[in-house]
């Protein structure tokens, strides 16, 4: 217990530096709740993007509905269905996005089969991500209608969808947007949490591990009748407790700011995702603590690593605003996958395995980073041990 107790005494001595990150986070959390609605959607609506809509299928209700829906969010430019002309249109930015409905799509969709819309886009297009999400939303909504209408014939189903879409399109879309707006607000809360959590973790873990990795103290501890494994185990529990406390503190305010949303399945998923991220941040911090030696290096690492990771991963700037190259690089950071999962969680309305699977996949990828960091840290520790004797 001596080591575990010392762990928290060392944390206590470093509390001021650590709590700065907590306070900054709280400040931003308050700022986010008090500022107005979703700036993002407005921004998109103000600059409607040009897109092309090519239909190789029959003129079904579902296709027509999709086109109508998209035309509200973007300018549909008429372009002849010719490979070269379409290429030119993209190249000269006449359109930024081309969606092609393949033949047989309507039937596949209505019968619940796998379907694929072909999309062509210009590189680094923010419109592409936005249009993708619009199309997914429309089709998701349609598939829900489809699933819960018991009508026998396809004709009738299509009619029902059409009727519902006609009657409720306005309502449906609005309610969807409201949900998204709320979802996005507290998604930003959890996105931003990545930065504070990561920084706090690096500072806390390194503060203690630097001390315990000092040669003189290490030797002194080895003189005592206590197994190295015992010391390491106590340090591990210290680290885990610290991570859990930091996470609990940060998510606890989310219940104050977004009580309604937090007591929902989305809220639960946000909690789970951030907990998974905490484990990974802890592991990376542990790795960092084995590389750096001084407290100055620790503060630098807290800034460079957490800020750098978070910046390119879309913590501060939405992922759809970041270029493709940046996102490609970012995919080598756990924060990228954490944010990705958050975006998916915010958009989830239906909690079927089909929709949850990509979220859990993202979480598993985040956990893989934890595993990799711990492995590398253990290898470094082993190398240090053999070179010391």
């Amino acid at each position: 217990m001596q080591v575990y107790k010392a762990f928290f005494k060392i944390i206590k001595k470093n509390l001021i530096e650590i709590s700065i990150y907590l306070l900054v986070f709280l400040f931003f959390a308050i700022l986010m709740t008090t500022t107005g609605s979703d700036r993002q959607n407005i921004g998109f609506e103000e600059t409607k993007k040009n897109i092309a809509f090519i239909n190789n299928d029959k003129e079904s209700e579902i296709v027509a509905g999709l086109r109508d829906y998209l035309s509200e969010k973007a300018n549909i430019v008429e372009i002849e269905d010719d490979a070269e002309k379409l290429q030119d249109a993209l190249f000269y930015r006449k359109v930024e996005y081309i969606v092609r409905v393949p033949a047989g799509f309507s039937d596949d969709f209505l019968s619940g089969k796998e379907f694929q819309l072909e999309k062509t886009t210009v590189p680094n297009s923010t419109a592409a991500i936005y249009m993708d999400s619009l199309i997914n939303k429309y089709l998701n909504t349609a598939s829900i209608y489809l699933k819960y209408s018991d009508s026998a014939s396809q004709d009738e189903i299509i009619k029902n969808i059409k009727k519902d879409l006609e009657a409720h399109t306005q309502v449906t879309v609005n309610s969807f947007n409201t949900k998204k707006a709320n979802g996005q607000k507290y998604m930003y809360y959890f996105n931003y949490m990545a930065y504070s959590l990561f920084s706090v973790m690096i500072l806390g873990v390194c503060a203690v591990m630097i001390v315990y990795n000092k040669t003189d103290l290490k030797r002194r501890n080895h003189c005592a009748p206590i197994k190295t494994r015992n010391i390491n185990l106590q340090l591990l529990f210290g680290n885990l407790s610290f991570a859990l406390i930091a996470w609990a503190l940060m998510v606890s305010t989310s219940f104050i700011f977004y009580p309604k949303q937090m007591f929902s399945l989305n809220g639960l998923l946000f909690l789970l995702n951030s907990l998974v991220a905490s484990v990974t941040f802890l592991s990376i911090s542990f790795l960092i603590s084995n590389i750096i030696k001084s407290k100055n290096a620790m503060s630098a690492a807290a800034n460079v690593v957490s800020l750098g990771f978070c910046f390119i991963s879309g913590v501060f700037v939405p992922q759809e605003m970041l270029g493709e190259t940046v996102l490609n690089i970012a995919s080598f950071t756990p924060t990228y996958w954490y944010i990705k999962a958050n975006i998916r969680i915010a958009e989830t309305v239906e909690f079927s395995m089909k929709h949850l699977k990509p979220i859990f996949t993202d979480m598993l990828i985040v956990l893989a980073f934890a595993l990799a960091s711990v492995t590398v840290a253990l290898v470094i520790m082993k190398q240090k041990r053999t070179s010391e004797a």
Partner: protein
Amino acid sequence: MVIKVENLVKRYGDLIALDHFNMELHEGEVLGLLGPNGSGKTTAINCILSLLKYDKGNIEIFGKPMSPDAYDIKRDIGIIMQNVAVFEELTVYENTDYFCGLYVTDKKKRRALVDEAIEFVGLKDFKKFYPKKLSGGLLRRLNIACGIAHKPKLIILDEPTVAVDPQSRNNILEGILRLNKEGASIVYTSHYMEEVEQICSRIIIMDKGKTIAAGTKDELKSMIKAVEKVTVEVYQPNEGVLTGIRSLNNVISAEFDGEMLVVKCGKGSHNLMMILEHLKANDILFGKVYSEPPTLNDVFLEITGKELRD
């Protein structure tokens, strides 16, 4: 036998830090390891404590072979390392409690032990101080408190008085003797011969990883030919004076150290008289005169041909 070290060899790459080093510590002894910086004292201590792997040799403590996981042996050892090893983030009290707690789990017993240790080193008024706020001497005392709080049977101190003010130094040296009186066997390393002479019942003189002499201080001093050092202030030093003195009976060596004529003499009861009479007879004017018994430095000098302190 508390510690028995046989033929210990430790290499750092090409450098032989310990070259068939032997050492024995008997119960109740204060054993001094005396040697210049780099002679291998710390390396020897680290090997004895199984902190370092060594290339050859045998180490037994309390009659049992020492190894990294000999926890029953470690329980009875108190160690004060050359480099102060305390937590910057813990107070004097918390530090002492931390290290004591690695040996003694009973909380109540520990509290009494920690208080006693802090009192022992004279840090009672500094219990709530953090190490950064302590002077060099007080910090060393904290290092000692952390090493002895659990009342070990064997205490090893590696240069505990380096960079320490005279007051703390005396406190530390007296403390070591008190611990010894209370029953602890002690290994004390230092490159200060005065300290070693002052507190150690037996002394091992080391150089380049080897034992060059061992015994009580009197035994060590009787090993060398020069038993008396006469120093005379001569107003007009010249070679002629030296030649004259060197020709005297019983004189081993004579050198000038500035105006001071330093003469080393063998056994004999009238060395000082003889030298002064020679100077008078040759009309050599002189001032102050001292006669001293040899020091451990002289022992070291005679065996190795160099000074203990460079």
